[in-house]
């Protein structure tokens, strides 16, 4: 794909269909990872983890990013956070391009954007007490902000832990409690945007609902904006205002949570929704079973990336890549990338 084409798509439909008041916008974000091999470890291929993704999030909104493993949702989250330098494309926070900022400015921007990680067992330093883990944030971001014990205790209580937990180590906590520590760390400096990468996937159902409630409550109280990444459609539906469905590094459908579940257009979204097992034995629904599995992102299929598994595949699908375009439907903007509709 040439750079000019990328740019064209980046400035395409998504941007125009959304009104202003965006706190975070991403335009034409692309991340390729080189694959090295052979005797001299030369580059033998490229993993197209994220390919030309654009979206924006309004203040106080939750944008759900959903897709199966390998669709690039985690890479996208990390690129937005600035943990991976993007191959192409831009990330704007409050209208400022993050890539152009120097490292000091980057640090101050990080104050406004924080991340919650999936694995509460690996994202906390096992050798530090909870107090040390949380205080580190204040130290990194300048001495004026050094958190007192009292501040940290208040923070712990805010996320549903006890102030006395400040001297305990991560291994003394259960998975759900550790995720609460992760959330406390993310919100400690009053960020505007929190990127949540599968925050409840490692948790049991009864604990999962506690953490989701905590996140919803904190969002209301602090006016947070979430980019919520998950493979679980029921969870994403529960927390999101709008949802982007990703498949092999591309957004294939993008609309409000309600519209997506009520009337999905893209065949992949339809199959994904129909595959969720519902906790109701009397619910009768038509299940779409997809053939095969997600192809490797190293060699994504030409044309529409979903055409190898699509039940409605046409000739054009294997040659021409569909663009993400708004459908002519009533109500909220509904974008999809599928030749069936255009």
């Amino acid at each position: 794909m040439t750079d000019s084409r990328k740019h064209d798509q980046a400035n395409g439909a998504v941007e125009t269909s959304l009104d202003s008041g965006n706190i975070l916008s991403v335009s034409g974000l692309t991340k390729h990872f080189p694959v090295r091999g052979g005797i001299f470890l030369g580059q033998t291929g490229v993993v197209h983890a994220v390919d030309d993704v654009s979206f924006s999030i309004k203040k106080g909104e939750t944008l759900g990013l959903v897709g199966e493993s390998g669709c690039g949702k985690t890479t996208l989250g990390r690129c937005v956070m600035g943990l991976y330098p993007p191959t192409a494309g831009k990330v704007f926070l409050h209208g400022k391009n993050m890539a152009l900022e120097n490292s000091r400015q980057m640090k101050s921007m990080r104050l406004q954007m924080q991340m919650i990680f999936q694995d509460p067992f690996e994202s906390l330093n096992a050798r530090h007490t909870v107090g040390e883990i949380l205080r580190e944030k204040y130290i990194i971001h300048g001495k004026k902000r050094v958190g007192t014990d009292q501040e940290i205790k208040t923070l712990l209580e805010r996320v549903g832990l006890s102030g006395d937990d400040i001297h305990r180590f991560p291994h003394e906590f259960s998975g759900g409690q550790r995720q609460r520590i992760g959330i406390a760390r993310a919100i400690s400096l009053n960020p505007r945007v929190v990127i949540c990468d599968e925050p409840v996937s490692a948790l049991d159902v009864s604990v999962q609902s506690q953490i989701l409630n905590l996140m919803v409550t904190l969002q209301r109280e602090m006016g947070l904006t979430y980019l919520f990444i998950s493979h679980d459609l029921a969870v994403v539906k529960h927390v999101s205002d709008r949802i982007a469905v990703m498949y092999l590094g591309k957004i294939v459908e993008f609309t409000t949570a309600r519209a997506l579940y009520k009337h999905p257009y893209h065949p992949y979204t339809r199959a994904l929704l129909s595959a969720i097992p519902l906790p109701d034995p009397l619910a009768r629904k038509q299940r779409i079973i997809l053939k095969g599995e997600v192809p490797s992102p190293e060699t994504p299929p030409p044309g529409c990336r979903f055409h190898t598994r699509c039940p409605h595949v046409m000739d054009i699908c294997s040659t021409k890549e569909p663009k993400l375009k708004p459908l002519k439907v009533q109500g909220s903007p509904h974008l999809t990338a599928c030749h069936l509709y255009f």
Partner: protein
Amino acid sequence: MVNNRVCCSPETGAVFPLLQVDGLVTAFDTEKGCVNAVDGASFSMAPGTTLGIVGESGCGKSVTALSIMGLLPRPSGRIVSGHIVFDGKDLPTLSPKEMQAIRGRRMSMIFQEPMTALNPVQRIGSQINEIYAIHFPGMTKKQRTRGAVTMLSQVGIAEPSMVMNNYPHQLSGGMRQRVMIAMALASSPDILIADEPTTALDVTVQAQILELIKELQGKMGMSVMLITHDLGVIAENCDDAVVMYGGRVVERAGVKDLFKNPFHPYTKGLISSIPGLAEKPKSLLPTIKGRVPSLDKMPLGCRFSNRCPHVMDICHTTPPPETLVGVSRGHFASCYLPGESRD
């Protein structure tokens, strides 16, 4: 097709159960002393049906399965008491040799993570061959290979003869789980125990695998024990369900009955805390307060007593008998709440 789709309980005794677990207690030696991972579980399975065992991590559902299969890690794990009656034989009393004739032949098991369950340095073909070699010593090499190819194509693998020569790492997660199912069903067992068979898989692949298990169950007429933490999987795939908490069975019922009319506060809490597709976004979900205590710190009486919204004095002191409340035919809950005061 599936025969005898009859819900059966030991109490009604309508159909002779294929497998009956009665008062199973399985203990593990840990650093903190001996703990009962399963503490008096009873349930039964009718031929040709699917029984779901559901619960959160640490509830003893996997240990129950390992106890049935005689696969408890030794020497730390052991069955302390209770009966597992399969085909008139009490499995814990069998000699290792007698057990070998049942395990893998009449009862098979598939595991959550197929990568760790398959041998990484052996080709798929020879791993399947091994099952025939052990359980059907009369078969020739040619028959074994033909059997393996047939099994692989039955589980929906497009090029079975190619996959036969592959190593597990060359296959995707869904393919590996298909290979595991092929291996488990190679001996056409009476019972397939599936321990979280789709937890490591994506939702579209999960749908494929569950569909495959259902289809093969219909073809071969076996019974399936589906162990999962996902109530949605239970609702869509099982005839009967057993809800476990802290090593005990808190409720068992036919699946429709269980979801329509859950009795135990834990079951109710579990069902209502799943984020549904129907409700309003960003609403607060009902939750179960607290968390599962570790096995060495379980409450004395009812193990759910420290989290239960309806806890009474008796709950703290005496564990409720497993079938204390008969909600309806074949539906039992282990709870002191009187049968009629359902909210």
